[in-house]
C-alpha cells in the first residue's frame, strides 16, 4: 500500500468515526458526563466496600467464622450458624433449581416448535417470572410449606424452595442462551449419522454448552446467597446451632446481617460490617469463578 492510500484510508476511518469533530466544548462536556455516570456506580461500590471494611476491621478474626451469635460476649459474636446455613440453603437450592431449569431450557431450545402457543405462553411467563419481586416468592414458599404441612417454616426446605423459585428463570434463560450458541452444524452432523434429537442433545449439544450453563448457574446461586427478603417472610430467625438436614431450623448470613443492623449495640454493628465483608467475599468469589469459567472454556466456533 502506498503512503497516499494509507493516508486516505486513515482519513476516511477518522471521518467515519466522528472523532474528528469531538473537540468542541459541548461534546467534551457530554463525554465528561458519560464518564462520570459510568464511574459514579463504581465509586459507590468502592465507598461501600472501603467503609464497611474499615467499620468491620476490628472483627476480622476467627471468632467471626467459628462462633455462634452471642448476646453476652458481643465482641466475640460470630456467624457460624449463618455461614453454614447459607451453604446448606445454597446446596438444596441448587439441587432443586438446576435440574428443573436445565430441563426446561432444553425443551424450549431443542424440542419445542417455536411458534406453538404453549411455547409462547411459557416464554412470556418466564420473562415475567424473572421480574417478580423476590418477596412474592417468599409468600409462595410460605403457602407451599403450609400445604406440605410444616408448621414451622424457618427450615432449610422452605428457604431453599423460595430461593430455587427465585433463580429458576435465571437458570432457564442463561441455559437457553448457552444452547443457542452451539452452532447448528454440530446438531446436523449428529442427525446425519442417524442420531435422534435426544441423543444429539445429550451427546453433542449439552456437553458443548456446559461452560455457559455453569456460568449462568453460578451467577444465579450467587444471587440467591445474598437474598434476604423471601427468607424474612419465611421466618428464618436467629439459631445458634448448625443445620443438620433439610428439616432443621436454619438462619442465613444476610438474615443475621439484617437482624444485627437493628441492634442498638455498637459491637453488633461492627460484627455486621465484618459479616458483610464475608458475604461479599463469598459472592465476589462466585462471580470471579463464573467469569473464569466463561473466559477459560469459551469457544468460538
Amino acid at each position, binding site marked *: 500500500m502506498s503512503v497516499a492510500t494509507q493516508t486516505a484510508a486513515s482519513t476516511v476511518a477518522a471521518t467515519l468515526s466522528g472523532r474528528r469533530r469531538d473537540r468542541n466544548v459541548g461534546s467534551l462536556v457530554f463525554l465528561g458526563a*458519560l464518564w462520570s455516570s459510568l464511574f459514579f456506580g463504581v465509586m459507590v461500590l468502592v465507598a461501600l466496600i472501603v*467503609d464497611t471494611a474499615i467499620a468491620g476491621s476490628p472483627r476480622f478474626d476467627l471468632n467471626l467464622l467459628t462462633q455462634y451469635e452471642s448476646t453476652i460476649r458481643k465482641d466475640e459474636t460470630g456467624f457460624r450458624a449463618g455461614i453454614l446455613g447459607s451453604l446448606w440453603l445454597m446446596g438444596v437450592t441448587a439441587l432443586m433449581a438446576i435440574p*428443573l431449569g436445565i430441563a426446561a431450557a432444553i425443551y424450549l431450545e431443542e424440542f419445542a416448535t417455536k411458534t406453538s402457543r404453549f411455547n409462547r405462553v411459557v416464554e412470556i411467563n418466564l420473562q415475567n417470572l424473572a421480574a417478580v*419481586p423476590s418477596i412474592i416468592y417468599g409468600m409462595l414458599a410460605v*403457602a407451599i410449606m403450609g400445604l406440605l404441612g410444616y408448621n414451622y417454616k424457618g427450615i432449610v426446605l422452605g428457604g431453599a424452595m423460595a430461593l430455587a423459585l427465585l433463580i429458576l428463570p435465571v437458570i432457564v434463560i442463561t441455559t437457553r442462551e448457552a444452547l443457542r450458541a452451539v452452532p447448528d452444524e454440530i446438531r446436523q452432523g449428529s442427525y446425519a449419522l442417524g442420531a*435422534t434429537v435426544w441423543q444429539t442433545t445429550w451427546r453433542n449439544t449439552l456437553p458443548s454448552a456446559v461452560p455457559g450453563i455453569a456460568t449462568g448457574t453460578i451467577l444465579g446461586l450467587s444471587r440467591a446467597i445474598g437474598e*434476604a427478603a423471601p427468607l424474612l417472610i419465611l421466618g428464618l430467625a436467629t439459631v445458634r446451632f448448625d443445620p443438620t438436614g433439610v428439616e432443621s431450623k436454619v438462619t442465613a448470613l444476610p438474615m443475621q446481617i439484617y437482624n444485627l*443492623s437493628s441492634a442498638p449495640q455498637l459491637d453488633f454493628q461492627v460484627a455486621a460490617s465484618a459479616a458483610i465483608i464475608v*458475604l461479599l467475599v463469598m459472592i465476589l468469589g462466585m462471580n470471579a469463578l463464573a467469569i473464569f469459567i466463561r473466559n477459560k472454556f469459551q469457544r468460538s466456533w
Partner: protein
Amino acid sequence: MPASPPDLSRRPRPGEQVIKAVLVLSAGASILITFGIIAAVIEPALHFFEEVPFGQFFATEDIGSREYRPAVLPLLVGTALTTVIALALAVPLGLGAAMYLSEYASPRARKWLKPTVELLAGVPSVVYGFFALFFVTPVVLQGWFNLEVNFTNAWAAGIVLGVMIIPTVASLSEDALSAVPMALRQGSYAMGANRMQTTLRVVLPAALSGVAAAIVLGLSRAVGETMIVTMAGGAVKNMSVDPSEPHMTMTAFIAITAQGENPVGSVSYNMLFAVGLLLFIITFIINAISIAFVRRFRQAY
C-alpha cells in the same frame, strides 16, 4: 433452531418419549409457579376483603381496629416516592453509562467495564440497606449535605435503590444501543455530525423502545425491592411527600408485618397477602409493558 431430521429409524423409542414428557413438564413448571403464586396470594387476600371493606383498604390513614392497620394508600405514596428518587438517579446515570459503553468505549474497554458495572447488581440488597442506614444517611446526607433528615428517610432509601438499579438500566440500554445498525451511525458521520450528535440524535432515538424497556424494568425492580426500603426507608405510614421523613413502602410493610406475630388466618396475616397481591399486580403490569417495548425494538431491525 435445529432442522428436524428425516425419520430414518422407524424403531419406536419409548425411553425418549418419557424424557420428552419430563422436559415438557419442566417447561410447564413456570406456568405452574405463576398459577401457584396467584392462588397462594389470592386466597388469603379474598378472606381479607370479606372482613375489611375496600374503602378502609384504600384509605389514607388507619381507622378502626388495633389488631390490623388496613390503609394502603400511604404505602403507595411511600413506594412511589422512593421509586421516583431511585429512577431520577438511575435513569440518567444508567443511560449515560450505556451510551459510553456502546458509542465511545473500545471493545477491549467494554469487555472490562460492563462486568464492573454489573457487579453493582451482584451486591446483596441487605448490604445496600446497611450502607444506606449507616453511611448514606449519617455521613452523606447529614454530614456532607447538611440535610435535616430522619434516621430512616426516603432520600437514603431512594438514592441507594437508584444505585442498585443502575446496572439494570445500563445493561439493557447498552444492548439496545449496540443493536442499532452501524449504517445509521456512518450516515450521520458522513453528514458531518460528531459523536455526541450521532449518539443523541440518531442512535438514541433508534433504540428508544429498548431504552424504554430498560427503564420500565428498572422501575419494576425499584417497586419490588424489599431490604433497602425496610432497613433505611422507615416503618411509618406516611402520606406526606417530604423525602426527609420516614416512609413505609408496600414491600417494607410486608416484611415488617411478616416478622410480627400473625396467626395464620388472622386479619393482619391476610392483610399481608392483600398488599402482596397489589404489589404483584402492579409489577406484573409494569413487566408486561417492558416486554411489549422489547418486542418492538427487536422487530425494528
